[in-house]
């Protein structure tokens, strides 16, 4: 055996459709132009359809006098010099598989997130915590270069592969010059955008990657600027400062949703709770109850949806989102599905109840309701929406309001009446359950009422039981997990 050097081993983990294959070919080309031999393998399989894909490359300096090197087709734990991942959870996955070695591996990753299906389909927040992953990667990689490459490529109008190549070049972990890398991405379509993303990421990686972001400053309650503000701000100021941010946004929302009285009533209600709050965890109980109470009070009925669809900043945010030019005509077709229930909710209490009870009236209304596509950019539909939004004036006398109010008060009273703070907090957290429209909203609110039933009848005797019910209630559409959890308690 004669010792004559080793291969440089590079692993790429990308998601299907991100251009991992393109990146691999660029690297092979760069090696070739630099007098290095490259071998690559990949696992395509069905991974090309949204799954995670791994490419593996080995490089070896060409030598006309030596035989061909034997290169491995398998990335091996402890044998990876460079690991490149297109997304931070994939960096975590490579770490979990042992491909990141403290004595050897330079890890280069974009630190944006692409959410997996289980993260996306959770009824609440099922997302992974990139901070944990980033911390572990910086601890275990010999060098860890990471920054948000997605932001760069979106700005440059290209895909992540060009950014990754720039970062690899900038990290100076391969014995190829920058000029060679630039040459290999010079051709083909989108070359300009690629070059731009490459250059930015080259610089970012050469500079060591992301800088620590200063944590945002704490919220400071602003001084009042309007007559309404002069009424509400002093009252908010009366709450502990940890509640100010939520209360400020909440009051603002309720004024817009209904009127200033609606907001003062809200603050009055919370002052009752505050009087009972022992103040643990920076008045967690008051703050979180305030959050969910405000959101529930601003429940999405027809006038509210119409109001939101008319908000002034909406058009420009759509334009930015779909990347339409300033003058480019846009058509906005909304998918509405008003049901008899939503119409009944707008009527005065007695009328609403009668409508829901009458099969004839329901049938008649059924003809005009149901799935509707409305072009909300047109003048006519805008006027209709304005008419619907103005109905909010009569909201407090409506059937829908009476129904919501009854549930809101029941929940709020349940929170207020607990002597055990932990139990009160568990019930307050249940306010997060209230969301959705139509059947979803019916499901979430009725499960919340069932939890309160369970508390009142003593079935759910402690905070842990309430939290368990809350969790099962949020599993999704199927009723079995929640029903079983209730049954298990009783």
């Amino acid at each position: 055996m004669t010792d004559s050097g080793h291969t440089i081993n590079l692993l790429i983990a990308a998601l299907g459709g991100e251009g991992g294959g393109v990146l691999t070919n660029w690297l092979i080309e760069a090696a070739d132009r630099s007098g290095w031999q490259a071998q690559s393998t990949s696992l395509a399989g069905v991974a090309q359809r949204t799954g995670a894909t791994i490419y593996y490359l080995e490089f070896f300096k060409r030598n006309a006098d030596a035989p061909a090197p034997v290169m491995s087709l398998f990335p091996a734990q402890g044998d990876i010099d460079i690991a490149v991942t297109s997304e931070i959870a994939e960096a975590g996955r490579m770490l979990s598989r042992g491909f990141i070695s403290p004595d050897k591996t330079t890890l280069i990753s974009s630190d944006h997130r692409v959410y997996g299906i289980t993260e996306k389909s959770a009824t609440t927040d099922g997302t992974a915590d990139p901070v944990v992953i980033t911390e572990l990667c910086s601890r275990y990689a010999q060098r860890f270069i990471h920054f948000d490459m997605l932001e760069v490529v979106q700005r440059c109008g290209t895909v992540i592969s060009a950014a990754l190549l720039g970062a690899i070049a900038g990290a100076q972990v391969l014995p190829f010059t920058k000029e060679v890398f630039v040459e290999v991405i010079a051709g083909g379509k989108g070359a300009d955008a690629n070059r731009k993303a490459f250059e930015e990421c080259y610089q970012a990686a050469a500079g060591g990657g992301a800088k620590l972001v200063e944590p945002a400053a704490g919220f400071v309650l602003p001084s009042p600027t309007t007559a309404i503000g002069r009424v509400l701000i002093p009252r908010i100021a009366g709450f502990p400062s940890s509640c100010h941010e939520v209360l400020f946004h909440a009051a603002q929302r309720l004024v817009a949703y209904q009127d200033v009285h609606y907001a003062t009533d809200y603050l009055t209600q919370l002052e009752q709770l505050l009087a009972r709050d022992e103040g643990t965890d920076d008045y967690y109980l008051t703050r979180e109850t305030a959050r969910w109470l405000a959101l529930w009070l601003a429940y999405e009925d027809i006038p509210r949806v119409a109001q939101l669809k008319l908000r002034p900043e909406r058009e420009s945010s759509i334009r930015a989102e779909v990347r339409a030019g300033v003058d480019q005509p846009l058509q906005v077709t909304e998918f509405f599905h008003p049901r008899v229930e939503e119409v009944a909710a707008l009527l005065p209490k007695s009328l609403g109840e009668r409508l829901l009870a009458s099969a004839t009236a329901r049938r008649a209304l059924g003809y005009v309701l149901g799935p509707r596509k409305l072009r909300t950019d047109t003048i006519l539909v805008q006027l209709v929406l304005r008419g619907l939004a103005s109905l909010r004036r009569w909201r407090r006398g409506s059937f829908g309001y009476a129904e919501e109010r009854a549930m809101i008060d029941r929940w709020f009273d349940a929170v207020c009446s607990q002597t055990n703070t932990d139990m009160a907090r568990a019930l307050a957290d249940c306010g997060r359950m209230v969301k959705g429209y139509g059947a979803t909203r019916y499901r979430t609110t009725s499960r919340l009422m069932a939890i309160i039933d369970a508390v009142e009848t003593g079935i759910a005797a402690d905070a842990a039981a309430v939290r368990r019910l809350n969790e099962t209630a949020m599993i999704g559409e199927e009723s079995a997990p929640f029903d079983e959890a209730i049954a298990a308690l009783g």
Partner: protein
Amino acid sequence: MAERSFKEEVKKLRAGDGDLFKGEGILAITKALLQSGVSYVGGYQGSPISHLMDVLNDAQDILGELGVHFEASGSEATAAAMLSASINYPLRGAVTWKSTVGTNVASDALSNLASAGVTGGAMVIVGEDYGEGASIMQERSYAFAMKAQMWLLDPRPNLTSIVDMVEKGFALSEASNTPIFYMMRIRGCHVTGEFLARDNVAPRYSNRSPVSPQREPEKIILPPYVYAQEREKIAQRLPAAIDFIRREQLNEVFAGKYEHLGIITCGGSYNTVIRALERQGLSDVYGNADIPIYCLNVAYPLIPDELVEFCVGKEQVLVLEEGQPEYIEQGIQTILRRRDVQTRVFGKDIMPMAGEYTGQVMLEGITRFVLASRRETVPLAMTLDTVLGRETPLSEEDIAALMNQLPPRPAGLCTGCPERPLFSAIKQLQQDMGPFHISSDIGCHSFATAEPFNLGNTIMGYGLSLASSSGMRHALPHKAISIMGDGGFWHNGLTSGVTSAVFNGHDGLLIIVDNGYSAATGGQDIPSLVEPNLIASTLDAERPKREQWQSIEDACRGAGVQWIRTVSTYNIESMKRTLREALTTDTAGLKVVIAEGECMLNRQRRVKPLIRKAIDEGQRVERARFYVDPATCTGDHGCIRLSGCPSLTIKENPDPLRIDPVSYVDNSCVGCGVCGENAHTAVLCPSFSRIDVIHNPSRADRVLQRARDRFRAWWRRRDERRQQALTL
């Protein structure tokens, strides 16, 4: 038109003597076939050899110039049957498929081929789909090679060895009158590298120089010849093969200074062995190893004399073969015992029985093997503990913390996939009608068995869903439901499924997903789709007039199905109605719903250039995509649970009060319309809108837009004033 085009790369196939050929394993194999003078090639796509079919398809010009005949076979059985051309005539031929599934489908023809024996070289290139990245159940093709007596080649995974072994394989096939399996592993198929090319060789017999028909009754698999064929396998073909393999040195022996040890490896694992030795300081990068290696480029049959020569005088050898049972190890033990060679054989006692021999597995195994020697101490760069520690540097605590944060990423349907609305419809229907038992099949639609649809109970094989529902249908509370792709339908489903179901009075529902291509394997064309690649009821097209079109509906009618409906998958309401009707109707017999919608990957490839061209030429074009209003979205994600589209994702909630992320449509949206359909049919929420961006607007567009803009601007100013007064 397949997903990946090799139009440019196939030009390399014209390389001649001495040219340096650089490229992928798949391309190298094709080149080797041409250098071997094949007369015909065929096969059926499936990873990891899908691209081999794509290369052959794209290389038809070059094949034509040489007179090589190519067929995209209807199934692996079709492909295997092609090899019968080599029984009577000295025609070289090769077919390819995914194994072991394809080998199972082809087994009838293969067994008969192996019994009859061949005159011309016959080769089956099997993509051995085993280990990480595999998409099927895990079995070895080796078993089939043994029981049917076909030789199995497993060359070292560098392009030079890969190409050489194709050429030598044909010679071996002819020398021993036996068909050959040529095994390509997943990573070998996709390996890139280089080799020195040789000239292509035109086949001796082709459409230019036909054979003169001749009959050899002794090659027909009927009594009494079959008994003679069985004897001939043992008396003539096996000895001829052993003789050829030994003479031509198809297997390789690499010397090493520690002669008391030896490693016997399959060719496919050779590179991993060298890397493990290198990391232990027992080899250099060029493969000059300190431990002698016997490399089996021919994995079956074993060559007793060669084996004994290698083992005699050694204290111990290590046998390296992936998967189970350990056929090679057993074979080696038998030979050594019969010859009374006392070398100790290590194998599956220190290597894992199941799974791939990855770098780490190999390193651990070889380390254990070296440490087991009592005769002489071999210095190792790493202790066993160090090697075991290489598995992961993470502390147990950190592993637990990390695993909590890693989202699974199962393969799923692509953005805009026409199958998504079908499964949204079935999921909605299930919410009304109670839980379904569904017999699923092979194809993209099998992803519906995963999140977020969770639809489907069993998968029995390609095109076998309907057949697999037949034993279940009498014991289900609802009519049996089977889902099959158009690929599976043509492969096997029409005969095994539809014909048999009609014959047996099956009154269940068969949903045929007609997306126009063999989509899961990379978008290859299938009988029910020919140019100009348009499906009847996709988003943008009327059913075009097509010649040579083989209709799924006509095929079903021909097989006796009376109740057939064709529905566009994108119309969820209509799909729900049709499926409900099929499941509740009193009409007897099989109900077939053809769920139509063109594969979105293929469609995008087809229409994107057209749209770009239209925009560049100044034509008025509307481009649609969807948008979720973050102000009305409450973050329940019910829309995602009905869809799972990659472009329908989540983002941080812009609302300072809300905590849960909002649904969000990213810019990969192709505007297929499913989000809107779901919002309507499942009564989700008022957050979805379709945004049509108009390129090259007409005069009327501009006038209208200006009027609307002015109207909205006036109100906006008024709203902003009022909003100002309502702030704090």
